[in-house]
């Protein structure tokens, strides 16, 4: 009888547990994310311990699928193999990730501070120009760097713009290797840091800084002792995001590192895959997950309960801008010039590349619009029918990419929003923590491993309906972009006090109505922005799709890759430019129409007004 009672109480408890919609959602998401995130993670783990077809069979003398520690012992045995295939690239990746993150945070942080705390001139212009490098794929920036700084003294000896115009010959370390990789990574992610840190600065209670002013602390001291420590959690999570991207970056070190043999873990992972050392490739690939997890842990330790605090107070209306006085004009003009150099000019340089009949020959007679507008025989000889603007393949690929981006964004954004709601309402519980971190992990899983695993899933009998389906790529991109979407969801939900919902509960409004009629409308702009970010990221994603789309011509970005591989550089550049322009247009149109923008999506409601 006793146990029956006990059972009853348990049932009752479970019953009460599920009356709260946040709990139901958490349980559903916990299951969903376990399947979508933990499964790929564990599959990767498995790959590190089994024998694959090909060379691994020969080397281990075992059968395919057998358990083995070979990959680990081989990779970490020491000696030159470990050195060149793991430790040196590991060091390079770490330096690149670290340098890129530090630089990105410095650039983004300084600009965010200037925008949020001073009376800097031309804020609107600076703010929108500064976002360009983030909208452009990082590798376009790398190519731009080469175009600018390559010179007759280094590498192939091609005269770059700087040498051509000013006779400036930069030394090798400036043109190739770690230094430019860090610069390009920092420049690419600087805007991202700006958005994140700027958002926090906007929401941070200004009196915290004002009270330090009154207590006679200098400007620098305030930044160092008050502002920085307070925004540290945001800075650290920005650091984590940039570090992981820099650590795992492939194309930027490929373009800028090859000449001086600056190799990173990603290129070694690729080499291992190419050579059939699949197990070791997975070990190398999972290093970024480990590093990410490590930083995540440090982050959590640093912002432990004792010093935990919310920076969002909502009472930030009375920010008084610091007067830059006579430095205002010089600073703002310098900023505009520098930012233009890395935003508008790369686009122009890029556009010029698409107009050159023979690449690299900068002569007037070599200019052509063939690659954009060409029709008929002459463009047929260039490998395709017509310039890209008259090409059916390009347009249908663009259409599908668009549809995919929107579908993926709807998935990621909506799930992210519900996760945001559920996690915020049940903050502090184990389940909420689990869901929150599970939603973050897809960010750390390399795109190649991610798509390989989903390909394998889609070829099983049970899930064969997913194979080659549009739904599969939408699902995969949705999961991959979930980290941003759920961060955004959590941020926007954190800004709404519980009372608003409780007011609804008291008068008996059902939960879905509370969400859709009360909470979501309040955070409309930031939620819209949360949808926008995956759209834009998805518009330029390549790695995730090459394995999963039925044909390289299926999406615009895979088509781009195809052009690249075949060597149709002008077409490739034209498609890239098309993507960048579309992304920029998307962002500004949505900002005009709904007020939503990438900046708001990441920053959780931050916006900088002009002055």
């Amino acid at each position, binding site marked *: 009888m006793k146990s029956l009672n006990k059972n009853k109480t348990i049932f009752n408890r479970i019953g009460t547990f599920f009356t709260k919609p946040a709990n139901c959602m958490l349980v559903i998401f916990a299951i969903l994310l376990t399947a979508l995130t933990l499964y790929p993670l564990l599959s990767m783990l498995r790959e590190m311990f089994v024998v694959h077809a090909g060379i691994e069979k020969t080397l281990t003398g075992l059968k395919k699928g057998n358990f083995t520690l070979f990959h680990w012992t081989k990779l970490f045995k020491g000696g030159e193999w470990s050195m060149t295939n793991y430790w040196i690239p590991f060091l390079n990746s770490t330096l690149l990730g670290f340098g890129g993150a530090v630089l990105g945070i410095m650039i983004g942080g300084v600009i965010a501070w200037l925008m949020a705390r001073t009376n800097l001139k031309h804020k609107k212009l600076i703010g929108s120009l500064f976002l360009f490098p983030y909208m452009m794929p990082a590798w376009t920036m790398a190519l731009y760097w080469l175009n600018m700084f390559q010179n007759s003294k280094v590498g192939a000896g091609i005269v770059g713009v700087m040498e051509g115009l000013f006779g400036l010959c930069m030394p090798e370390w400036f043109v190739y290797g770690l230094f430019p990789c860090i610069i390009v990574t920092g420049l690419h992610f600087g805007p991202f840091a700006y958005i994140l840190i700027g958002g926090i600065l906007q929401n941070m209670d200004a*009196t915290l800084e004002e009270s330090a002013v009154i207590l006679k602390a200098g400007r620098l001291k305030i930044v160092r002792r008050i502002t920085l420590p307070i925004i540290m959690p945001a800075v650290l999570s920005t650091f984590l995001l940039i570090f992981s991207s820099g650590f795992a970056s492939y194309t930027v070190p490929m373009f800028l590192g090859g000449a001086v043999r600056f190799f990173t873990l990603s290129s070694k992972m690729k080499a291992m895959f190419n050579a059939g050392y699949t197990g070791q490739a997975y070990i190398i690939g999972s290093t970024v997950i480990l590093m990410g997890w490590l930083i995540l842990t440090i982050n959590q330790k640093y912002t432990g309960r*004792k010093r935990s605090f919310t920076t969002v107070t909502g009472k930030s209306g009375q920010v008084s801008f610091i007067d830059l006085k006579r430095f205002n004009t010089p600073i703002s003009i310098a900023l505009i010039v520098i930012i233009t150099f890395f935003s508008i000019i790369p686009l122009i340089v890029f556009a010029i590349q698409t107009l050159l009949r023979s690449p690299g020959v900068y002569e007037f007679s070599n200019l052509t619009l063939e690659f954009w507008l060409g029709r008929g025989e002459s463009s047929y000889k260039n490998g395709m029918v017509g310039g890209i603007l008259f090409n059916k393949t390009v347009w249908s690929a663009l259409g599908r990419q668009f549809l995919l981006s929107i579908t993926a964004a709807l998935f990621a954004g909506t799930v992210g929003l519900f996760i945001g709601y559920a996690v915020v309402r049940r903050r502090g519980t184990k389940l909420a923590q689990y869901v929150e971190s599970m939603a973050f992990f897809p960010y750390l899983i390399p795109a190649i491993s991610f798509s390989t695993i989903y390909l394998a899933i889609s070829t099983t009998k049970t899930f064969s309906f997913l194979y080659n389906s549009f739904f599969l790529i939408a699902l995969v991109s949705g999961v991959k972009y979930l980290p941003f979407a759920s961060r955004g969801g959590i941020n926007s939900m954190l800004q709404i006090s519980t009372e608003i919902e409780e007011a609804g509960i008291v008068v008996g409004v059902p939960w879905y109505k509370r969400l859709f009629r009360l909470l979501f409308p309040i955070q409309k702009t930031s939620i819209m922005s949360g949808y926008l970010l995956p759209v834009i990221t998805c518009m330029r994603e390549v790695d995730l799709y090459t394995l999963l789309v039925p044909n390289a011509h299926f999406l615009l970005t895979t088509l781009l890759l195809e052009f690249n591989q075949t060597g149709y550089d002008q077409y490739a550049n034209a498609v890239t430019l098309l993507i960048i322009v579309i992304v920029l247009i998307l962002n500004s149109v949505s900002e005009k129409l709904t007020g939503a923008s990438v900046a708001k999506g990441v920053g959780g409601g931050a916006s900088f007004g002009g002055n």
Partner: protein
Amino acid sequence: MPRIVLEHVSKRFDKFVAVDDLNIVIEDRDFITLLGPSGCGKTTTLRMIAGLETPTEGRITIGDTVVFDAEKGINLSPAKRDIGFLFQNYALWPHMTVYQNIAFGLENLKWKREDIKSRVYEMLRLLKIEEFVHRYPAELSGGQQQRVAIARTLAPAPKVLFMDEPLSNLDAKLRSEMRTELKRLHSDSDSTFVYVTHDQLEAMTLATKICLMNKGVLQQYDPPLTVYSKPNNIFVADFVGNPTMNFINAKLSEVDGKHVLSLFGLYATFTANMNKPLNRENVIVGVRPEHIAITDSGKINATAYSALPAGMETTVKVKIKDALVSSVVFGAIDYKTDQAIKCDIISDQICIFDANTKELISQGSISINSL
């Protein structure tokens, strides 16, 4: 010594005028409260004096130093104004312990380490928060945080102390406790206090002078009791005092050299104690609730609409004809609903306001003419 002078100070945000041509002088060791409803410009005024906000026009002097002058382009940073500022939400730095919070300002003054330590402990003792010295703000209650904020503000011993609604986040009991403490602090510290509040009771009980503002315009700048008993206009009269002053529409006429008021359908003779012409017909008579006495000898017939005994005094809503007025009677007296009573207007501080301009035109006593 710190005497603060504001001359023609204005602050505009785009088209919105937050503070309009403000002129006040705050004497050394005053305890000034800036009082007014929310949005009246009181916080902006305080922040302008402190240097956290830049006025659009005017001149501010603290002691002998001009800290702001729009014409001469002087604008001293808050750090150079030698002030202390207590924020409404305390603005304690979440990443520093109580000790670090209090010591921070002293470090900036380049004090020696031992001196800092002894000063911090002195402040901790003064505010009775010694035991929390190594805690973080998030681990303290609202009242404790408030004390830490005060300690932090007082530690460098500023000559002028600005406070922006420092008690508004506390519960009623703690608030009245802290009021007492603040008043003692003021007398102990010989600093000048400028205090922003929207709570008239707080302003009345703490201040040596109240600066009452509305919509950016100064309404009255006087000691609390003057503001209470001799309000410049209906806004001031209405804002100060609880229960609020009774306002009765009346007609004023002159009969046989005497001023006769017609109110409640009755006639009353008004004897002014101010030498101001009374040449208007439409006036509003302002009577404080404690000046409506309920006595059997009263000349006004009324009924008790409701009675709210609070122990020490009783607020009675009195219905005279169709009008409702409040009366406060000492002691706990309960009236039955609609019980017939008699009352009278007793005081020589009855206010007469111009019904159009709402300005005070006279003060004096009223005697109801017998029927």
